[in-house]
C-alpha cells in the first residue's frame, strides 16, 4: 500500500467511526439533553424510561419552565434532597420543583435571573440549602456532564453543548446502564421527574419503606470526623444568597430559605462547618433549620439513605413552612432562625451535639 492510499483510508475510517459514535450518543442521549431541549413534552409521561445515567436536571428543569412559562410562578430550588418535595402540596403559587444534582446557590441565582430575563413572573422562590454549598465551588462541577447548566443560562452555544455530550467517548458504566435500559428495561435509582419537576425515581423506595416499616439502607458505623469547609465555597454561596435576597426585594417576590435535614450520622461530620454557615446566613435572611439532631434526623425510617430524606419528610417540611397538608409535625423539627435567635439556636445545637456524642461515642 502506498502512503497516499494509507492516508485516505485512515482519514475515511476515522470519519466513519466518529460518525457512528456521535450518532449512537445522540440516539441514546445518556443525560437527556436532546430530549430536554427538543422534546420536553416527553417529561410529562411518567411511565417513560430514558436517560441511562439520569437526566441532567440543570438543563431539563429550566427547559420545562421555559417551554411552559404560563404554568409556573413559584419555584423550589435545591439538590437531589429537595427533589422529593411535592410542589403541588405547596401553597401560594404554581410551583415547579427546580432541584438539580448538587444544586448550588450561585446556580439558583443564575436560573432566577434567566427566568426574570425571559419575563417569567415570579411570586415565590424557596431554596433548600445543603452542607455541600459550603464545601463545593461551582468551578468544581461546571464540567461534569450531570451538572452542566442550560445553554440559555450560561450563554453557551448549542453546538458547544452538543459537542460536549455527543462528541465524546461514552464511559463504561454508561454503556452498561444503557444496555440494561435498552435490553432489560431497567432504570434503577435514577432521577426522573414528573411534569412539576418532582423526582419520581424514588417512589418505589418510599412504597417499600411504608410496606415493610423498616429502613432500607445499611448504616455505616458511627464516626465523628468533622469536615473542613472551604471559605471560598462558603463565601460564594453566601454572596449568591445575598444577591437573591436583593433580587427578591427588587422584583417583589418572596424568598424562603431552609436548611435540609440529613441523617444524624452524616450530620455529625458537617455540624461544625454548618454552625459557622448558619450564623452567617442569618445575617442575610431568616431561614428554617431542619438539620441537627431531632426526632426526624435520628429516625432511620425517615431516610432513603443517610443523605436523602423521604417524600414523607418533604411533606413535613412543607407543613412547617406553609402550614399546608394533613400531617403531624414533630415539635423539634424545623426552627425559624433569625438574626435575633441565631446565637441561641447554635448554642442549643452545640449542646445537643455534645450530649449526643457523649451518649453514642463515650
Amino acid at each position: 500500500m502506498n502512503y497516499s492510499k494509507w492516508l485516505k483510508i485512515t482519514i475515511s475510517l476515522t470519519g466513519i467511526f466518529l460518525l457512528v459514535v456521535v450518532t449512537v450518543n445522540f440516539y441514546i442521549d445518556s443525560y437527556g439533553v436532546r430530549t430536554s431541549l427538543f422534546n420536553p413534552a416527553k417529561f410529562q409521561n411518567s411511565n417513560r424510561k430514558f436517560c441511562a445515567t439520569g437526566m441532567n436536571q440543570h438543563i431539563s428543569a429550566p427547559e420545562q419552565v421555559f417551554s411552559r412559562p404560563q404554568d409556573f410562578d413559584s419555584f423550589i430550588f435545591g439538590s437531589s434532597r429537595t427533589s422529593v418535595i411535592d410542589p403541588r402540596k405547596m401553597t401560594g403559587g404554581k410551583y415547579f420543583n427546580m432541584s438539580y444534582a448538587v444544586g448550588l446557590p450561585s446556580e439558583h441565582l443564575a436560573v432566577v435571573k434567566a427566568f426574570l430575563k425571559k419575563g417569567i413572573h415570579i411570586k415565590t422562590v424557596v431554596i433548600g440549602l445543603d452542607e455541600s454549598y459550603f464545601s463545593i465551588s461551582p468551578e468544581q462541577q461546571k464540567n461534569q456532564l450531570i451538572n452542566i447548566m442550560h445553554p440559555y443560562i450560561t450563554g453557551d452555544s448549542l453546538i458547544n453543548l452538543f459537542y460536549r455530550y455527543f462528541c465524546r467517548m461514552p464511559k463504561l458504566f454508561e454503556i452498561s446502564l444503557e444496555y440494561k435500559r435498552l435490553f432489560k428495561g431497567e432504570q434503577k435509582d435514577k432521577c426522573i421527574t414528573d411534569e412539576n419537576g418532582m423526582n419520581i425515581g424514588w417512589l418505589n423506595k418510599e412504597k417499600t419503606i411504608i410496606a415493610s416499616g423498616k429502613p432500607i439502607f445499611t448504616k455505616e458505623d458511627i464516626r465523628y470526623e468533622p469536615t473542613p469547609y472551604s471559605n471560598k465555597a462558603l463565601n460564594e454561596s453566601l454572596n449568591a444568597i445575598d444577591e437573591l435576597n436583593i433580587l427578591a426585594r427588587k422584583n417583589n417576590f418572596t424568598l424562603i430559605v431552609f436548611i435540609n435535614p440529613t441523617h444524624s450520622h452524616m450530620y455529625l461530620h458537617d455540624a461544625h462547618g454548618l454552625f459557622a454557615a448558619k450564623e452567617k446566613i442569618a445575617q442575610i435572611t431568616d431561614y428554617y433549620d431542619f438539620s441537627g439532631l431531632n426526632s426526624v434526623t435520628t429516625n432511620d425510617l425517615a431516610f432513603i439513605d443517610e443523605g436523602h430524606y423521604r417524600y414523607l419528610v418533604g411533606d413535613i417540611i412543607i407543613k412547617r413552612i406553609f402550614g399546608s397538608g394533613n400531617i403531624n409535625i414533630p415539635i423539634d423539627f424545623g426552627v425559624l432562625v433569625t438574626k435575633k435567635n441565631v446565637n441561641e439556636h447554635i448554642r442549643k445545637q452545640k449542646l445537643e451535639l455534645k450530649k449526643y456524642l457523649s451518649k453514642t461515642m463515650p
Partner: protein
Amino acid sequence: MLFNSYSFIFIFLPLAVLIYFLSCRYWPAKVARLVLLISSLIFMSLWNIYCALVLISSVLFNYLLGLTLSKAIAAANKPRKKLIFIAAIGGNILLLGFFKYTNFFLTNINDFFSAQVSLINLIIPIGISFYTFMQIAWLVDIYRNGGFRYSLIDYCLYVTFFPYVISGPIAYHKEIIPQFESENAGIFNTATLCRGIFIFTLGLFKKTAIADTLAIIANGGFDAHSALSFTEAWLTSLSFTMQLYFDFSGYTDMAIGIALLFNINIPANFNSPYKALDIREFWRRWHITLSRFLRDYIYIPFGGNRTGEIRTLINLLLTFLIAGLWHGAAWTFIFWGFLHGLALVVHRLWLKTGFHLNKFFAWILTFNFVNMAWVFFRAKNWEDAFNIIKGMAGFNGILISPHQADNPFWQKLTVIGIKFGEWRAHLPDTENFIYFLCLVMIPFVLLTKNSNQLLEKFSPNWRNALAIALLMICGLLLLNDASVFLYFRF
C-alpha cells in the same frame, strides 16, 4: 492552546502546515521560515501574550549576546569572550530564577527568619525552563567552539518552534537549524506526513486514553487528606508513575509527529524507561534530552568523571540536585533530585564491587525506587508525600475487601495485621478497572515496543490504518475530558 484540543488539531495545525508549504512553494525559503516563525509566535500568544513577550525578549537577548560572543571568539578576544559569556549565562539564570524561584526563595526567607515578606504575583511563562536550557546550550557551544552564527529568523524559529517550545524535547541548535536550512525542508512529503500522523495519534491516545484515566486515581490519592491504606497508597503511586510516563511520552510523541508534518525530525525523549535494570540506564531512557543536557552542560563542566572518584560522586549529586530544582521550585523536587543523585552514586559504587544482580531483582529494585521517588515529585508538600510513603510501607494498615472475609487464605493473613475493610475508601469512586489500570500498564510497558520503535518500523498497510483510525477516534472523543500536560508546569 493545547496539542490535545480540537482547535489545535482541526484548525491551527492544518492551517499552519498548509500555509507553510504554500509559502515554500511560492516564496523563497527564508520567507517560508518567517511564516513558520509567525505561526509559532501565534501559538505561544494563544496561550498567553505575556508568555510570548517573555519568550521573544529571551530569544532576542540571547541572539544578541550569542552573536557578540561568536564575534569576540573570532577576534580571539579572550577577556571579552569570558565577560560576554558570563553575562549571557547569568542573564538566562537570572531570568529563569526570577520567574520560577523568586516566590520559593521568599517563602524560605519568611519561614527561616520568621519574616513576612510579601510574595510576588508572578505567572511563570510557559516553556521558560525548556527554551532557557536550549539557549544556554547554544551559548556554551559558541563559547567552546566558536561559530554557530545563524540568521535571526533561523535562530528565533529554532527556539520558538511550536512543537517543542512548551515542553521540549530540549533540541540542540545543531540538530534543528540545519534541517530548517536544508533544501528538502520545504518539499511536501506524503510519507513524512503519514509518519507524523502515525506517531501523533499514538501520543494523543497515550495522553487522553491512558494518562488522563490513570490521573483519576493518582490525583484522588494525592489529594486525599486522610491516611491512605497500603493498597490505596500503592495504587496511587503506581497510577502516578504510569500517568507521568504516558502523559509526557504522549506529549513528546505528539511533538515529534507535529514536527514531522513540517519535515523536521526532533530527538526522541523516551526509550521504554521502565524497562531499565539500573538507575543509570533509567536516565538513559527517561527524558533523554534533559539527561544529555545535564551531562553535556552541567556534569561535564563540573569536571565529570575526570577529577577523581569522590569529586565524580559529588558532581553526580550536584547535577541531580540541579535537575530537581529545574523541575520545580519546592523542596520536594530538590529531594527527588537528591534521591536520584544518591541512587546514581550508590550504583556507581556498587559497580565497583563487581557484583551483579539477577535481572528480575535489578528491575524490581530500579522500578520501585523510581516509583517511590515519584511520590516526592508529585506530592504538594512533605506531609502528603510521607502520607503516601507511610501507606506504601503498611504503617496505615493493610485492608482487604470485606468480600474476602470468608476466604481462608486471607483469614490466615490477619495474624500479620491484614484487616477486612473498604480498601479504596479514600480514592475516588470510579469504575473498577481504573483502579487496576496502573497494574495492567506494568507488563504493557515492559513487553511492548515503544512509539519510536513503532515509528521506525512503520510502513503503510491496512492493519495499521485501521489501528490508527481507532486510536485516533478514541483520542479525539476523549478530548472532552482533556487536561493539561503534566510537564507544562516545569
